[in-house]
C-alpha cells in the first residue's frame, strides 16, 4: 500500500497564502472556492506575550475517509495508491461528503453541481513531479511523499520530528497528513 501525504512545517510557514493561489491557478478553481486555505491560529495570549502560527488546511488524505464512507454513489473513493478523489461521472452533488469532512476540505461547485477537492495534483502526469503547492511554497515548508515508505522524505521528516509531528483532530477518519510544529503549542489536535 501507499499513503501519499503532505508534511507541512508550521515553524516555517509564513502564512503568505501562495499555496492557496497557486492551487487556484493550477486547478482553475473559481472565485470563492479554495481547495487549500490558510488559517491564522492565534495570536493567542495577551500583548506582548503571544503565540501564533499559520495552518494550511486541505484534504488530509485520511486513512479512513468519512467523505468516502458517506458517499451514496461511490463517487468519492480512495484510489489504490491512497489518494482520495472524486469520480465526477458518479457524483450527484448531494454534498454529504462536504458535511462529513471534519476539515472543510471539500468544495461544492455551484456551476457544475459537482464536488471538488485537492487531488494532490494527480493530473500532473510526470510521476516525479510534486503538487504545485509543494513546488511553489515561498517558505519551502511542504514535503510530499509516501508515508508508507519508511525511506521517503516525508517518513524521515515525521520520524525526526517525533512528538512535534501533529495530526488534525481525528474523529475516527484518521487524517494522514502531518503538521510539524516545535516552537509553540499545537492547538489543532
Amino acid at each position, binding site marked *: 500500500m501507499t499513503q501519499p501525504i503532505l508534511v507541512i512545517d508550521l*515553524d516555517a510557514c509564513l502564512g*503568505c497564502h501562495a499555496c*492557496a*493561489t497557486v492551487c487556484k491557478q493550477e486547478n482553475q478553481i473559481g472565485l470563492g472556492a479554495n481547495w487549500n486555505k490558510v488559517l491564522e491560529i492565534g495570536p493567542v495570549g495577551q*500583548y506582548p506575550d503571544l503565540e501564533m502560527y499559520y495552518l494550511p488546511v486541505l484534504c488530509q488524505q485520511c486513512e479512513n475517509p468519512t467523505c468516502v464512507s458517506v458517499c451514496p454513489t461511490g463517487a468519492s473513493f480512495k484510489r*489504490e495508491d491512497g489518494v482520495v478523489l*472524486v469520480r465526477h461521472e458518479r457524483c450527484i452533488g448531494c454534498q454529504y461528503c462536504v458535511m462529513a469532512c471534519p476539515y472543510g476540505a471539500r468544495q461544492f461547485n455551484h456551476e457544475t453541481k459537482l464536488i471538488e477537492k485537492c487531488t*494532490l495534483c494527480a493530473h500532473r502526469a510526470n510521476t516525479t513531479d510534486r503538487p504545485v503547492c509543494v513546488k*511553489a511554497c*515561498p517558505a519551502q515548508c511542504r514535503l510530499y511523499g509516501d508515508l508508507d515508505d519508511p525511506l521517503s522524505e516525508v517518513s524521515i521528516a515525521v520520524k525526526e520530528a517525533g512528538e512535534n509531528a501533529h495530526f488534525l483532530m481525528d474523529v475516527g477518519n484518521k487524517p494522514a497528513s502531518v503538521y510539524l510544529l516545535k516552537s509553540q503549542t499545537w492547538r489543532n489536535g
Partner: protein
Amino acid sequence: MKDENSVKERTSKSVRTITGALSALGLWGKKQPQTFTEANSIEAPPDQIIPSACRLCYGRCGILGHIKNGRVVKIEGNPDIPSNVGTLCSRAYAIPQLMYSPYRLLYPLKRVGERGEGKWQRITWDEALDTIASKIKDIVENYGGHTIIHQYGTGRDMYQFNAINRFFLELGSTATFGVGNLCWLGSYMVSRRIYGDETQYTGWDASKTKLIIHWARQERSRGYYDWLLVKEAKKRGAKYIVVDSRFTSGASKADIWLPIRPGSDMALVLAFINILIRENYYDRDFVTKWTNGPFLVKPNGWLLTQQDLDPNGSSTNYVVWDENSQSPKVWDSKQVDWESPDIKPALLGSYQINGVEYQTSFQIFYDSVKEWTPEKAAEITWVAADKIREAARLYGQNSPGACFARGQKVEFSINTSGISHAFTIMMALAGNFDVPGGQNIAREPANGADPYLFDLIPPKGEIRQKTMANLDKYSVCPGKQKILGELGGFGAATTHAMVTGKPFQPRMYWGQTSEPIVGVEDSREVMEGFKKLDFIVNVDLYMTPTGELADIILPAAHPNEVDRIEYAHSGHGWPASHTTLIRQPFSPPLGECRDDMDIIFDLAQRVGVNMGWKDKYQFFDFMMKPVGMTFEDLRKKVFITSQPSYKRFETGRLRRDRKPGFETPSGKFNLYSEDLKRFGWGPLPFYIEPPISPFSTPELLQDYPYILITGGRSHAYFHTEYRQSPWMRELHTFPTVEINPATAEKLGFEDGDWVYIETKHGKCKQRVQTTPAVHPQVIHANHDWWFPEKLATDDLHGAFECNPNVLVSNDGPYDPAIGTDQYCGLCKVYKALDGPPKGIWTTPEQLKGFLPNAKGGTQA
C-alpha cells in the same frame, strides 16, 4: 484554528468547467487504470515558456510564463534564479488577471467632461503626444520648466525611473511627490555620507550568519525569498530577533520579539549602541582603524583640521591624539594614510592642544548615548528593559557575523536621517560590515549595472544647468532640500505649492504609474491641488483616482509586456542583492499600450530634449558592458549572480583609487558626520519623539486616545496596486483596522464592524479585525485603499473613503535633510452608523467583474 467552524467554513461559488477525458497516471510510477474522472484536467502543453521577472513588488522573483495562443496563461517560479529558487508569492499568479483585466487602458484618451466626471474620448498617440509636447513647450517658455511636477511610482524599475527623471530634469522640473524621501533616501543619503555607497543595508548575508535582526521588516510582504535563508540559518542555530510594533508573521517565528512603541525606534537603537560600548561588545580595532571615531572635535562641534593647528595645513586633513608620541598627529585624507608610521590614535578621551581641550568624536558619541540605558529606553519604547538588554547582548555576542535588515516603514519619520545613521553606526560598532554573515557594503544591484548612469553620463542641457545653479529659486521648498531629496521637492512642499501658489504656482503634472491622491499624505489636499493645475497627464495601466483628473491619459504597457534589466530593490540579502535578471515580454503590449521608457523617448524627441541615449536598448547594452555582456546576451542567459566579497575596506576595493578605506572624502567610515551637521541635522544620531504622540501631545489624548499606525504591508497588494485582481481581492477583501480585543470590547466593537478612524485632520472608514497582535493603545489601519469598481463620480473611485492618507496633514514637521513626514499620530475610533462603503465588491459574484473577458470595466 479558532474553533471548529472556521475550519469547516463553507465556500460558495465556483466557476470552473470540467473538461473531458482525463489523466490518471499513478503517483508512484505505477500506471493506474483510467476508471474515474478527476476534478481537473491535463492541460495541453504551452506553446512556449518564457523566463522573465515579476515586478509586482520590490523582490523581482524569476518567473516562467506559460504562453498559449499568444497569451500568458500560467505563471511558475523559475527554479534557476538563486533568490526565489522557483518559489513565488500569491501576487505573481495575478499577472495574467492584471494583464488581461477588463480595466486595462488600451488607448490614449482625452478628457471631454469636467475633471473627475469620468468622460473620455479615444485619441491617437500622435494627437496625444503632440498636444503634450506643445503644452510642455508653452509652459517652459511662459512659466519655466520648474512649474512642471513629475512623478513616478515606487518599485518601478530604475531604468524607467532614470529615463523619466532625466527628461524632466532637462526641462527644469524639480518638484515631485517624492517617492524616495519617504522610505529610501534616508538610508541612501546617510550610507553615502557615512561609508561612501548608497545602500539600503542591501546584501546582508543570512547564508553564513549567526544572528539576524529584522527591524520592522515584514517578511511575508516583499520578496519573501530572504526567509528561506533566515529559515536555514535558524536551523543552523542562528538567533532571529524581530523589532516590530505588531506581532507579525516574522515576530511569531522570532527568538526575541521586541514589541516597540510606534515611532520610538531611535531610542532602542541608541540603547543597543550603549550596551555594545559599555559592555565592550564593540569592535574596537575596527572603530579605531577604519572610522573617524579617533578624530578630535573642536568645541564648536566641527572636526579639528590640520589647518586649525597650522595655517599652512590642509582643511581636509584631520587630527588625532597619538598615544605613542603623546602628541597630535594628522590623518592625510588625500593619501588616505597617517602623516607618519607608528601612530596609535586614542579612541576615547579628551586632549589638550595649545591650551584648548579636544575630545575624540567617539568620546562625544559615547557620552551622548550613555543616557540610553535599557531602563530609559524601556520607558520610551515600552519594550521591557531586560528584553532590550538580552537582544543587544545577543547581537554583540554574535558579532562580527550578525546581520540586519530593516523595513522601509522605520524611515517614515521626521527622524529618518538619524535612524539610518544610528543603524549604520550600530552595525559598524559591532564589526559587521563586509564580513561573512554580516552586512555586505552593496549597492542595488551589487554586481554593477547601475542605472543611475543613465543620467550621470550624458551632457546636461542649458535649462537644467541654470535650474541646478539656482535651485533655491526653482524649488518648491527653497533652502530645504539640501542633500538627496528629490532635487527641490518633497511631497508636502509640492502639494502646498499646488494649493497655495507658494513659492510659485505649478502649472502641469506628469504622473507615470503612480497614484498620489491615494498614496500621498493628505489625499484631499493633493486632489485640491491637482484641480488648480492647467494641464495633467497620467500614464498608467488602469484608470485611477489621479487619472480621473487628467487632461490626457496614456496607456502604459504591463511590466511583463516590455524588455528590462531587473534587480531586487529595498534592502534584500544575498544572493538577491547580487542578482541581475531579464524581464522580457510574455506577449506584446495590449491595444495601443506602450512601454513607459518608449513613451518618454518619443516625447523627448517631440519636445526636443536630448535623452543622451538613442533608445533603451543602447543604454541596456551599455549597462551590461561591465559584466562583459550585451542585453541580448542577458536575454539568453536569463540572469547573473555574483558572490559577495569581504573586507574590501582592507583590500582597497571600495575606493576608486584602490587604496584601503572607504569612498568618502577622508577615506574613513564617518561615524561622526559633519555632512549631516551641515545639512541641518546633528553630527550624531539623537532621539526625537514623534510630533503627535502620547508624550508630545498629551493634551490630545482625551479626544484622540489611540496611536494610529499604517505601516503593515499587505501580502496581496503593493500600495495602491492590484485592486483589479479578483484573486488578490479575495485574499485581502476589506480595508481592515486591527484593534486589540480589550480595546474593542471597551468600545463595543466586534469583528466585521465598520468603524470611523478619526484624527485631528480627517476620518476614514475601515472594517474591524480584533487581534492581540497590536498593543491595546495602538490601532493599525491598512494603507492606500481605493476601489476601481466604484465610479469616477463616486468621489474618485472611493479614494478618500477608506484611505488613511486622509488622516495625515502636510503641515510638518519634516526630517530637515530629507523632508520625510511623520506618519503615525493619534486617533479615535467609533462605529460607522452609516455602515460599510457603498458599491464595493467583496463577494465572489461581484469580483467576477474583474476577471479577464468580464463585461464592464474601462473598456466598456
